């Protein structure tokens, strides 16, 4: 189960900030990464309870990151977040546990996270 933190990965700093702020507000612990390489480092440090993952990123993109995860037999639930029109297709392609189509409602984000990771353990801020 790890330490319960959620890892949010997106190359757009505004989206990264707003998603992590929303999750923190909800009471979750959050870690951020700006691309796949940083995300891998974070995963190696501590296994998160959920990864919220943007797909189109420089250096190491979403697909490559997930391939690495599988190669290392790291079993973490993955929520794919993308502006691509075929968000569901991409999610199925990588066998993700769920998908979020940008732009999404805050409620959509929170209910998806709740479904995959369970209720927050921390205090509601």
């Amino acid at each position, binding site marked *: 189960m790890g330490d319960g933190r959620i890892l949010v990965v997106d190359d757009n700093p505004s989206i990264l900030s707003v998603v992590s702020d929303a999750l923190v507000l909800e009471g979750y612990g959050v870690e951020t990464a700006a691309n796949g390489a940083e995300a891998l480092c974070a995963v190696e440090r501590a296994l998160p309870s959920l990864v919220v993952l943007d797909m189109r990123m420089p250096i190491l993109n979403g697909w490559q990151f997930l391939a690495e995860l599988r190669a290392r037999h790291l079993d973490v639930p993955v929520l794919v977040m993308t502006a691509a029109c075929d968000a569901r297709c991409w999610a199925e392609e990588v066998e993700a546990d769920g998908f979020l189509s*940008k732009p999404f409602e805050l409620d959509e984000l929170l209910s998806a996270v709740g479904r995959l990771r369970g209720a927050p353990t921390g205090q509601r801020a």
Partner: protein
Amino acid sequence: MSTDLLFQYLTWTLFLLVFAAALVDAVRFPLGANVDIALLFGAPSLAIMINLAVAGGLVAPGPLPDAANTSLMLALSHFLLRLVNDFSSVPLVVMRLSEAGLLLLVAGSFWLPPPRPLWYTLLSVTYFVGHQLYATAAFARESRRSAGVTRRRMEAAAGGSVLLGLAFLAAAIDGCMGLGKWWTMGFFEVPYLASAVFYLLGFAPPAWLRHSWQAPELRRFLGRVAVLPRLPSLDAVLRELESGVAASLGVADAGIGLWDEGDRRLRFTDAGKPYEVPLEGTTAGQSFLAQKPAFSPGPPRGDSAQFEWCGAGGVEAVLAAPITIGEKRLGVLTAYVRRAPIFARDDMSLLQLLADQAAVVLESHTLIAESARLRAREQATQMKEDFLSAAAHELKTPLTAILAQSQLLERRARHNPGEPVDLEWVERLVNEARRMAGVVDELLDVSRAERGELVGARERVDLVEVAREVCGRERQERGRCRLEANGEVVGDFDRIRITQLLEELIDNAIKYSPGGGEVVVKVWQQDGEARLDVVDHGIGIPREDLPHVFGRFYRGTNVDDRRFAGMGLGLHVSRGIVEEHHGRIWVSSTPGQGSVFHVALPAGIQLMGD
């Protein structure tokens, strides 16, 4: 039956056969040449009839039938000369002499009783052999200028004429000197029979022989036109077809008239100038309406301008065949000949075969052009679709932050109403809204670029200063950009747009060198121009993309959609900005090593009074 008789009957049969065929032709197509051919073989046929009548006892042998025979054979050679005059002009003097000579010799044959004096025999033999040799030379010359079946027929006619001449020369010598059976056999009977065979081949060849003579011409034409459907311009195809037909037929010129369904006219082109031919009253029109090959002696009727041209070129006849594929009537193929063809039907049948080939070539060309158009349209549609999805993606990114951030603010306000607003959140919201406005502006810039309305008010701008500003910003935000410049490089520019240009080029350089690597901006003045180079060491641009990079919606073929987002508009707008400043922009690149974008703008101030 003795061999002599066998030879004789065979020879006679052949001559009669040729006469029968010639008579049928003369009745069906009463052209000058056909009538002359009928007369040419009518003479010996009549002589043969007389001989048969004598042998059969219907006519008493005597000086009269003998004189008739001699006269008819002399007449044969005269008619041969008349035929030669039909396709190749014989000097008037020669024609008159021939007529006069014939009259005299015929009169002589009836007036002088047999055995006739030596001088008469000599004269008649000279007359006959002379005519035969003249005709042989004429046929041989004409055959070299012809093609296909006509050429072979001319060669056969030449062969027949020379053999007939030699045969009668031999007979005359034998008559005077009595050289015996072997002489008669070898130099009279065999050549006589051979000449009949050659004349048969020349003047009444069977259909299967005609087809086998046509085959090499057709094959050569096919080889020549096989590549035509792939030529880009219809005009080039038509010109090639026309010259191919002229070469295959051995004629002066050929023309293709395309049928215009709307105007109901046939459109030809001569030396780049188009002209129209009506359906009524012209050979081409007649052929098109009847959907059969047509031939008319005399210059083309109808268009007076064409009439003049043909008169000048000495065109004596027009052949036409319809170009039709299946049910679709494409037009007409015409051939202009300098001399009225004496074997018109063969020329017409070859022309029709060539027209059929031309139909296939033209139809293939149309289909290929059509499919190329379809492919281009599909490509354009695909590009627009790619653009729309890329544009949607670009808009969705700031919109995601805006939607989530504003909903966060809403939540916070609802659950903790008294709490002060988080300024950072509000600033983020404003920035993202601005960013989205920027994307929309970029889209609008494209249509401004189309109308040439990108560049607004101009002022004195130092390119080095602008480059330093942009580079500094990029270094702060993205970590890399180095400027190489000295002093000032000043020009009359739209500051905002020039800044945008630099931002676009530098942003691109950074975006497409994901592995890091330096981005260098060089600004200098050269030959009265403000010069700018943006150098990167990134993924580069493949050679086939280089001519298209500044095009609308264009994204490089080596750009993986999953790594690099983009709408394909930035460079297009950049080019618009540069060109509205009357400058130039171009790119050089090595795939895998990097690219350099070069810009040249007119330097110096062009304000009045400066």
